[in-house]
């Protein structure tokens, strides 16, 4: 067994601080899921918008584009299972964020069901945007990552704006919301992750 050398209280504090810093660096999110979902929804919204706005009547049932969400969800589940297996450290913050997004996923599923059954898309648009802001803000708070918090406020402001636009233009608002709430923070998280990883 190794000889344990004596060390001072100052050295103890320095050691504790350095270990806490190490954990903080390992806990940085890579932003992948924000980018995956941000781009997926932006893509669907813009395609549907283009078809409706430019009256491309040859394309029927363009709303079916949103079914892309199903394979993306399956891909996400596989990605998360794989990532969880590789993860060598688990934090309470990770758990909390994962639960926040699961709650959001369930709420979105329930909301989509109610909205499509009752055919109240136009009325529901601003509420959906409002809902986007909730997990985004909480994740930003838990990770102490301001761009996500700003993105969440963006969603809430756009939810108010959505009341004043035509239903078709709402799709453009969704695209803007995705850009500020998930895509930009996603790239910033990725850059941060790369910086910490290479440090």
């Amino acid at each position: 067994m190794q000889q344990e050398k004596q060390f001072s209280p100052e050295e103890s504090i320095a050691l504790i601080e350095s270990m806490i810093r190490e954990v903080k660096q390992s806990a940085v999110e890579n932003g992948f899921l924000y980018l995956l979902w941000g781009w997926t929804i932006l893509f669907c919204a813009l395609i549907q918008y283009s078809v409706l706005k430019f009256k491309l009547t040859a394309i029927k049932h363009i709303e079916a584009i949103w079914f892309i969400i199903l394979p993306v969800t399956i891909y996400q589940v596989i990605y998360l299972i794989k990532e969880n297996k590789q993860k060598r450290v688990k934090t309470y913050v990770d758990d909390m964020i994962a639960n926040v997004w699961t709650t959001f996923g369930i709420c979105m599923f329930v909301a989509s069901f109610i909205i499509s059954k009752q055919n109240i898309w136009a009325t529901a648009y601003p509420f959906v945007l409002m809902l986007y802001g909730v997990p985004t803000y909480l994740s930003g708070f838990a990770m102490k990552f301001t761009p996500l918090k700003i993105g969440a406020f963006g969603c809430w402001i756009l939810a108010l704006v959505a009341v004043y636009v035509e239903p078709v233009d709402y799709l453009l608002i969704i695209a803007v919301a995705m850009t500020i709430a998930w895509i930009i923070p996603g790239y910033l998280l990725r850059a941060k992750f790369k910086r910490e990883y290479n440090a």
Partner: protein
Amino acid sequence: MFKELDPILHSQLRLAVVSLLIGVKEAEFTFIREKTNATAGNLSVQVQKLKEAGYIEVIKEFKDNYPNTTCKITKKGIEAFESYVKALQDYLQVGK
């Protein structure tokens, strides 16, 4: 009078392990080894001591057919760490 520093924690590697675990839910042995730059043998010995003191919980299981050890701080470990930090603060305040 100063409170005596907990001898279990007042050892570089054991303190490093507990400081890593204090901020997480659980961490694998390989992660702790990488972050503390310790050898596997030495780390095993110190982890065992922390386990015997009841400061950490050690879970041994199989991951992809390989044995995998995970460590987790216990309530007793958190309390010991808090008292240790408090004792350090007392030392440092008097030193000023």
